[in-house]
C-alpha cells in the first residue's frame, strides 16, 4: 500500500477533523517515544529530571570553560529544539524507528502549527522601540534585505527552493529555529531543515570568530558593534560571543539591541513564505518549484498567527501569560523535534552538500559588511549617536 492510497484511505475513513488524531491505542507508543525523548533532552518545565542532554551540555560547557564569556554549546545553539532532534537522530539512526511509534509520531504535523501559533506572544513589536526609530528601521531593513538576498543567491546557486527558503528564513531572522518553523510552510524535507540549521549555526560560529576583526576594520564604536552582532550574526550566544570578542560594551549592547531583531522575526519568516507561495502560484508547473508544496492559499493557522501577533502587539498577553505559553512552546517543539529527529537518516542530511553552506556564508557576509557600512554612515550622518 502506498502513502497515496493511505491518504485516500484517510479521506474515506474521515469523520471529522479529529480523525487525524487516530485512535488513542494507535498513537500512544509514538507519543510516549516523543515524551521520553523530550524529557531526556531538555529540562522540561515541570519535569525535575536531572539526566538530560541539556544538563550534559551544561556540564561539558563548564568543563570547556566559557568562550568570550559564553558557553560553547550555547554558541552551538544547543536548546529545546536541537537537543531532542539530536537525540531523535541518534535513536533513529542507531536503533531504527519501530512501526508502532509512527502513528503517534505523525502528531508532529499538528504540533508544528500549534507551536508556531503559540510563539505569537513572544514578539511584541513595541518592545523594540526602546532602541529608537533608526535602529528599528535598520533591524527591519536587515531582515528583509537578508531574506531577499538569500533567496536570490539560492536561485543563483540552483539550490533546492525549499532549502533556499528555509535558509532565507533562518538567516534573515538570525535564528536557526526558524528552519523548523519554516518546515510546514515551505514543505521542506526533514534533512533540508537540519542541513539548513547546521549551515546557519556553522556560519554563525565562523562569523562570530571573524566579527571582531571586521569590527576593528570598520573602526566601529563598541555600542554599535554590538548592534551589528545582534543583527548580523544573531543566534543569541553567537552574537554575544562575537560582540564580547570586540569588547565588554559591545557585548552588553548586543544583548540590548537584540530585541530589534527578535520582535520582527515573524515578519522575516512570513515574508519568505509569502514570496515562495506567490512564486509557486505563478509557476505551478515549473519543475524547480517545490517550496510550499500543495499549499494553494494561506493556511488558516498562518492567518491565526498573524491575528495573535496583532493581539500581542496590543498587549493582550501579559508577561505571566507569555511565560506560561512559552513553557508550552518548549513542550510543543521538544516533542515535535524528537519526532523530526527520528525521521531523518544521516545521509538525508549529508546529501545536500556544501552549496547551502556557500549560500549562507555568502549572504551572511554580504549582510555583515553592508550592516557595518550602513551603521558607519548612520554614525557619520548623526542618525546614530
Amino acid at each position, binding site marked *: *500500500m*502506498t*502513502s*497515496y*492510497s*493511505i*491518504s485516500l484511505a*484517510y*479521506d474515506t475513513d*474521515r469523520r471529522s*477533523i*479529529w*480523525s*487525524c*488524531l487516530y485512535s488513542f491505542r494507535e498513537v500512544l507508543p*509514538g507519543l510516549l517515544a516523543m515524551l521520553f525523548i523530550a524529557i531526556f533532552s531538555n529540562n522540561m518545565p515541570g519535569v525535575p529530571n536531572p539526566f538530560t542532554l541539556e544538563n550534559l551540555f551544561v556540564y561539558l560547557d563548564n568543563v570547556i570553560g566559557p568562550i568570550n564569556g559564553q558557553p560553547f554549546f550555547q554558541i552551538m545553539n544547543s536548546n529545546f529544539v536541537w537537543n531532542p532532534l539530536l537525540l531523535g537522530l541518534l535513536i*533513529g539512526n542507531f536503533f*531504527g*524507528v519501530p*512501526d508502532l511509534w*509512527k*502513528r503517534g*509520531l*505523525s502528531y*508532529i*504535523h*499538528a*504540533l*508544528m*502549527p*500549534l*507551536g508556531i*501559533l*503559540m510563539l*505569537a*506572544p513572544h514578539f511584541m513589536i513595541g518592545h523594540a522601540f526602546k532602541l529608537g526609530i533608526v535602529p528599528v528601521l535598520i533591524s527591519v531593513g536587515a531582515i528583509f534585505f537578508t531574506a531577499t538576498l538569500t533567496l536570490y543567491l539560492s536561485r543563483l546557486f540552483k539550490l533546492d527552493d525549499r532549502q533556499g527558503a528555509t535558509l532565507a528564513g533562518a538567516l534573515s531572522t538570525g535564528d536557526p529555529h526558524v528552519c523548523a518553523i519554516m518546515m*510546514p510552510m515551505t*514543505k521542506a524535507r*526533514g534533512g533540508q531543515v537540519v542541513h539548513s540549521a547546521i549551515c546557519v549555526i556553522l556560519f554563525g560560529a565562523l562569523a562570530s570568530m571573524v566579527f571582531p576583526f571586521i569590527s576593528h576594520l570598520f573602526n566601529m564604536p563598541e555600542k554599535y558593534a554590538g548592534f551589528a552582532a545582534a543583527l548580523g550574526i544573531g543566534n543569541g550566544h553567537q552574537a554575544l560571543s562575537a560582540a564580547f570578542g570586540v569588547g565588554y560594551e559591545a557585548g552588553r549592547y548586543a544583548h540590548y539591541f537584540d530585541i530589534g531583531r527578535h520582535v520582527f522575526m515573524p515578519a522575516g519568516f512570513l515574508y519568505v513564505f509569502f514570496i515562495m507561495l506567490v512564486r509557486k502560484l505563478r509557476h505551478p508547473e515549473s519543475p524547480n518549484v517545490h517550496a510550499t*508544496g*500543495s499549499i494553494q492559499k494561506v*493556511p*488558516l*493557522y498562518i492567518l*491565526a498567527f498573524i491575528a*495573535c501577533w496583532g493581539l500581542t502587539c496590543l498587549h*493582550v*498577553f*501579559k508577561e*505571566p*501569560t507569555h511565560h*506560561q*505559553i512559552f513553557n*508550552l512552546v518548549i513542550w510543543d517543539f521538544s516533542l515535535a523535534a524528537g*519526532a523530526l529527529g*527520528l*525521521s*531523518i*537518516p544521516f545521509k538525508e542530511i549529508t546529501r545536500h552538500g556544501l552549496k547551502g553552506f556557500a549560500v549562507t556564508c555568502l549572504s551572511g557576509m554580504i549582510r555583515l559588511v553592508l550592516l557595518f557600512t550602513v551603521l558607519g554612515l548612520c554614525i557619520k550622518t548623526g542618525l546614530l549617536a
Partner: protein
Amino acid sequence: MNRDHHTLDQNGFDYMENSGREEQDRDTVGMVFALILMAVLTVGQYMGLY
C-alpha cells in the same frame, strides 16, 4: 514516493507525509489546540488564577 524505514510503516503509513485533507485537519487541530490553550491561559491570568 521513495520513503525509508525511518518514517514508513509496514502498512504504508508515512508519518512525515502531510498533504490533502489530512494536512488541513492536522493544521486545524493544531490551531484549535493552540487557540484553546492560549485563551485559557490568557483568561485565567486575567481572572487572577495564577
